[in-house]
């Protein structure tokens, strides 16, 4: 079992039982049952390792374990690698044949169409038809599936901004593979390994040294997950806003066009808490004249999840809607006119319901695009 690797950590949790993971868990807040919180799942993991829990209950355990947005709040409020342990638990359940059917649809779509949405692979590159890329550049612009298929205008803006900063990039067009994050998060690790090897080969053949992306999920998958499964994957991985923030700090960019907006910023879990990219969006927002940034109570490492991650949106939309509602109410409560974020999954989720709130949604790239000369 993958869980065996984490046995010490699981017993450490059992021994400690501090429960500090629990209060901020977005799913526990809704369910109010120990088994949905990380601490409870650690006891369940121990029960599986020791054979206390019969296999006849594994299907239900899989439901519980999948009812998690993989937001990393439990890990941030702990010293154990809770997110990894829960993913290992998912992997064990998948190996034993308890894969979720909805997850499988997405995973098979990745295998067939290089995106989890069952959409045509060729459509992924439509947004880039009129954009010139440099095939010789060792810097790869990795568009990602969600942005390519649903928020392509932001990709165009991101590329335009980076070009203005003198950064020439390559783009793989419809050859771009899916990063396979869904495979990893939902525990389909064998398929994930295959995806990594395929992707590494494509990137290597294209002469890639650095990967630049706008998608926090893809960023983390390439930066943090791939090397754990495949040491050869040693590319530098950067988020678009890391590059822009560095240019601001070095004085290479100065925004002069004012953008008069009162905004609040939502840290996407995968970009903020899990990738540690917390200061950069604020460096950018504070550098744009006219922007009034009003922070929510829960930001940075303690940011609250939108609810959509970890494949949860495909499993229990009512639960996700309740989590989303809490976050949007918090955003609304700041009195800001715009909720700004930079994650296609968060935006996809917020987009569905934001009309019911007194706040509008923007991507940080939209604001940068307005501010840049």
């Amino acid at each position, binding site marked *: 079992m993958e869980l065996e690797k984490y046995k*010490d950590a699981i*017993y*450490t*949790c*059992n*021994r*400690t*039982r*501090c*429960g*500090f993971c*629990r*209060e901020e868990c977005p799913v526990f807040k809704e369910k*109010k*049952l*120990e*088994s949905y919180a990380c*601490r*409870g*799942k650690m*006891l*369940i993991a*121990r*029960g599986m390792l*020791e054979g*206390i*829990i*019969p296999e006849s*209950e594994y299907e*239900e*355990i899989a439901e*519980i374990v999948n009812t998690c947005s993989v937001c990393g709040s439990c*890990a*941030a*409020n*702990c*010293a*154990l690698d809770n997110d990894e342990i829960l993913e290992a638990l998912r992997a064990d359940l998948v190996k034993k044949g308890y894969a979720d059917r909805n997850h499988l649809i997405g995973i098979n779509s990745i295998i067939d169409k290089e995106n989890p949405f069952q959409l045509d692979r060729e459509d992924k590159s439509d947004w880039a038809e009129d954009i010139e890329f440099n095939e010789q550049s060792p810097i790869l612009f990795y568009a990602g599936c969600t942005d390519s298929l649903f928020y392509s205008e932001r990709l165009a803006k991101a590329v335009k901004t980076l070009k203005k900063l003198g950064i020439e990039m390559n783009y793989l067009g419809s050859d771009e593979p899916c990063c396979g994050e869904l495979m990893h998060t939902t525990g389909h690790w064998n398929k994930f390994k295959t995806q990594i090897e395929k992707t590494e080969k494509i990137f290597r053949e294209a002469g890639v040294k650095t990967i630049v992306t706008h998608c926090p999920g893809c960023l983390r998958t390439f930066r943090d997950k791939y090397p754990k499964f495949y040491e050869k994957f040693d590319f530098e991985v950067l988020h678009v806003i890391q590059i822009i923030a560095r240019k601001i700090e070095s004085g290479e960019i100065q925004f002069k066009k004012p953008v008069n907006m009162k905004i609040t910023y939502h840290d996407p879990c995968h970009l903020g*808490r899990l990738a540690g990219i917390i200061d950069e969006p604020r460096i950018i927002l504070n550098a744009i004249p006219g922007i009034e940034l009003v922070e929510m109570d829960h930001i940075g*490492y303690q940011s609250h999840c939108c609810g959509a991650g970890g494949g949860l949106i495909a499993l229990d939309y009512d639960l996700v809607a309740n989590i989303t509602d809490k976050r949007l109410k918090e955003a609304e409560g700041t009195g800001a006119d715009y909720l700004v974020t930079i994650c296609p999954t968060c935006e996809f989720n917020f987009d569905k319901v934001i009309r019911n709130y007194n706040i509008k949604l923007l991507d940080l790239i939209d604001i940068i695009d307005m501010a840049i000369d």
Partner: protein
Amino acid sequence: MINNAQIEQITRKLREELGEDRVFEQVFHRMAYSRDWSPRDAKEAYLPDIVVRPFSVDEASKMVKICNEFQVPIVPYAGGTGMSGASVPIYGGISVDMKGLDEVKEIDEKNMTVTCGAGITILRLNEILAEYGLWFPHDPESKPASTVGSAVACNNDGTFAIKYGRTPDFLLNAVVVTGTGQLLRIGHRKALVSSSGLKLMPLFIGSEGTLGLVCETTLRIYPLPKTRQVVGILFKSINEAINALQRLLQAGLSVESAHINCGRRLNFYTHSFRLKHNREPDIPKWANAVLFVSFNGDEYVTNSTKDYALKLSKETGGETLKEQDMVESWWNSKHTGSFIPFRQKWPDSQREKKFGAADLGLPVGRIEEGYKRYLEIAEKNGLEILGMCVYNEKASCISPSISFAVWVDDKDPESVQGWWNYVKEMSYMAVDLEGTMSTYWGDGQFRVGYNRYEHGDSLDVMMQIKKIFDPNNIMNPGKKFSVDEIDKITVRIEKKSEG
């Protein structure tokens, strides 16, 4: 032992009355309620037979009535951070998760009270109150997980108790469900004092779920203080530190928190210091005690109080701890919980061994004596000494609630047994020194039997009182009182440990 047919019958009845999504019989759900924070063998797990999650007082009452009809044990579960085994279902039965009762019903700013479900965590309650500039100053280190109900049921410690007291000082009113399912309002509504009737509320404070379920509470609250100062002062001995604190109080200073740590114990509270500096904090060799104090109020008051406190401490032999990061580290541990993300103190410090502490109440004049005995008793039982911390738990006076901590190797049955022998010997020592066995974790599962050493025949009277509230001994059996000692008990279930 409840048999499978009975479990099925009870589950069915509970589902009929409460609904499908309130009752869980799967092993994995039950596994999640099988332990608390108490040091015990790593392999131990006591599974309840059923988990029930009520969302209202009415549901809680219905559940207890059904359990009373079937004479099934009920074990309340909330934070799960107790060290006594109080929330562990050693006789199986129903583990009732109280965290569904977490509604804040009223914040009465005029009368400075809050009425809330007992299942709300203390941290969450304070987040809500802070929006109104208000504060519930009961502040256990476990506040992100432990609930208001636990504060009542276990009468636990709070960082700010030397200024504001603890549960007996905050709790004005409560709604409880007794062991027969009867709903009772106890206490004096929003009045702070009362001379009417007999006082039932104090019986529930520290009752550890043995009388009934605490479902709703009305608590006294305060305005949030505007500023705070926290300082550490080193002393050559524990007695010197005690005398210095005595002097601060005698001078009329308003002290918000006051903890005296022996030199060894300080290391446990400097987790974030070690993360930041990658070394142990540098404590001068002559320093055998550290007094940490905090003051709150308006800026002028806190500053002048701090200055005067430091002046008085110097006169009594103290030296201000200059390394402010050490003070910060202690404060993070005790109050703010602001640790480096992904490096929270509690699990990080428990990777090898388990923290365990005997929680004794000693008269102030016998603390040094108690400290010496602690070192001997811990050594005799083969336990690594972690150190002593003297908390102060009554308003405006030295009121020791002392944590005598050791490391327990929960992978080694001898170490676990050594821990329980240690707790027992320490408990006897506290009574011999004119004190009490427990000041914040209660009798729970482990002091049952030998707590008669403290209470004598009074324990029989306590059991009679319990029977008034819980005639069938279904409320947390085997905690505080031995099931064998409560006569005419129809519930007789073997202790069961799975794992």
